[in-house]
């Protein structure tokens, strides 16, 4: 039977539609909707989560994120400059550091700093209730940011460094006043992406032992699930994550569009 190309495409499409429809209907009939809703979205549980889910959990997530991002930014910039250094030992150190922390799972780095380090150092802990968690996600982020920042620095035309040096600036002055400010403009969109990834990675900090004071969203949700024997808290926490990440993702899109237009 000879079908034309157009007929073939249409036939395939209707088959897919038909199968999908059958699946939806099948699910609708077989699933016990009230039970599911009761488990995932039990309305009378929700007020119990508030306001702590915002004033404690979301706040802590944001604290871990901003501390981690600050650490990552500073460390990432230092690593990027080391990668571009004339000194071979600096380049080698930065490359190794980046390889290690990009290669390790973030969860492992968190366990390393939060659990293994105190054991190894005879009980000495990274100070601050937010210290170990923020430092761990910051270090992981720095390894990724270093490569982004390095690419940004290298995207600044060589003539900028030359012009700065030709008016007598030192290498450091030229970097600080001329090259890095231009590099940062270039890397704003990818860095916003790093911020989103970091925000999500803070959920891994939930594996560390925490006090009520430092519970972030994921840990808060998990503990609430256990105490209430209901899955609703995870859904609520998920919605809060989305409320933070989706606007940021949209912002990256806008920034990228603007950068493309400026070029």
């Amino acid at each position, binding site marked *: 039977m000879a079908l034309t190309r157009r007929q073939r495409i249409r036939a395939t499409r209707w088959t897919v539609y038909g199968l999908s429809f059958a699946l939806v209907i099948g699910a609708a009939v077989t699933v016990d909707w009230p039970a599911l809703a009761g488990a995932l979205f039990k309305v009378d549980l929700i007020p119990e989560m508030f306001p702590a889910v915002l004033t404690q959990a979301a706040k802590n997530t944001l604290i871990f994120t901003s501390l981690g991002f600050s650490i990552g930014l500073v460390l990432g910039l230092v690593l990027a400059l080391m990668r571009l250094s004339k000194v071979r030992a600096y380049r080698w150190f930065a490359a190794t550091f980046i390889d290690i922390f990009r290669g390790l799972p973030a969860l492992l780095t968190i366990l390393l700093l939060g659990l293994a380090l105190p054991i190894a150092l005879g009980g000495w802990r990274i100070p601050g209730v937010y210290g170990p968690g923020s430092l761990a996600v910051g270090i992981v982020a720095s390894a990724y940011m270093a490569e982004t920042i390095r690419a940004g620095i290298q995207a600044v035309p060589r003539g900028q460094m030359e*012009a700065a040096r030709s*008016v007598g*600036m*030192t290498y450091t*002055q030229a970097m600080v006043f001329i090259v890095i400010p231009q590099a940062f403009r270039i890397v704003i969109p990818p860095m916003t992406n790093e911020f989103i990834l970091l925000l999500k990675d803070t959920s891994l900090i939930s594996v560390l032992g925490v006090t009520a004071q430092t519970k972030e969203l994921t840990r808060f949700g998990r503990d609430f699930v256990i105490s209430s024997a209901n899955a609703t808290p995870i859904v609520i926490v998920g919605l809060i994550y989305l409320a933070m990440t989706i606007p940021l993702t949209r912002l990256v899109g806008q920034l990228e569009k603007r950068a493309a237009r400026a070029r």
Partner: protein
Amino acid sequence: MGVPAIQVIDLHKYFGKLEVLKGIDFVVQPGEVVCVIGPSGSGKSTLLRCVNRLEESTSGRIIIEGDDITDPDADVDKLRTRIGMVFQQFNLFPHLTVLRNLTIAQRKVLKRSETEAREVATAVLERVGLTDKIDEFPIRLSGGQQQRVAIARALSMNPDMILFDEPTSALDPELVGEVLDVMRTLAGDGMTMMVVTHEIGFAKEVADRVVFMDDGVVVEEGVPAEFLVNPKTDRARQFLRMVRQESESDSQPSTP
């Protein structure tokens, strides 16, 4: 004569295995305007970039007003403040306004006060005729205006000399004139200038001396009236004939 502004002694430069400068000896006296001409790939831009050590020479010495800039222990940053540089691609700082382009090095390198730096910036902008653009960003200026700001940026450091690396080559033909005018005025004010250029007309009118380079060596040099009219070497004669033909074919459409 006193100490030369620039003295180049037996300068060699390799890029990998390729020898681009094959023993250059060459002097610029204070107040002198020297134009360096030659075919592309002759090493003239490399020579210029060696003078303020943007390019490291392989061997030989370059003495700036008595100080050896090729000495590994030389304070290159300090020496560079005496040597202005104007680039083919302008290289203005795009994230800074014209004013900040002119004041940042004065503030950070010469440690001048904000007020003084601003005064100097205004004065040099006046010399290049762009005081009204002081608060603009470079991207908003035409190529010719950007290059004039770049000249002002060099001037803002009160240099003893300025190096020009093909300052008009990246410009649309109608914008070349305004940049050459500024350079002509500078030369008239007694600025020491070393200019790598393809503008034979400018060399003829403004230069005290023309240096012709080809294949990494100085082939011939002389005062423009002699060299440009009656070159001694075949290579120079050939090059000048070629350049003249080009510039004639360029200017034909505009002549009625």
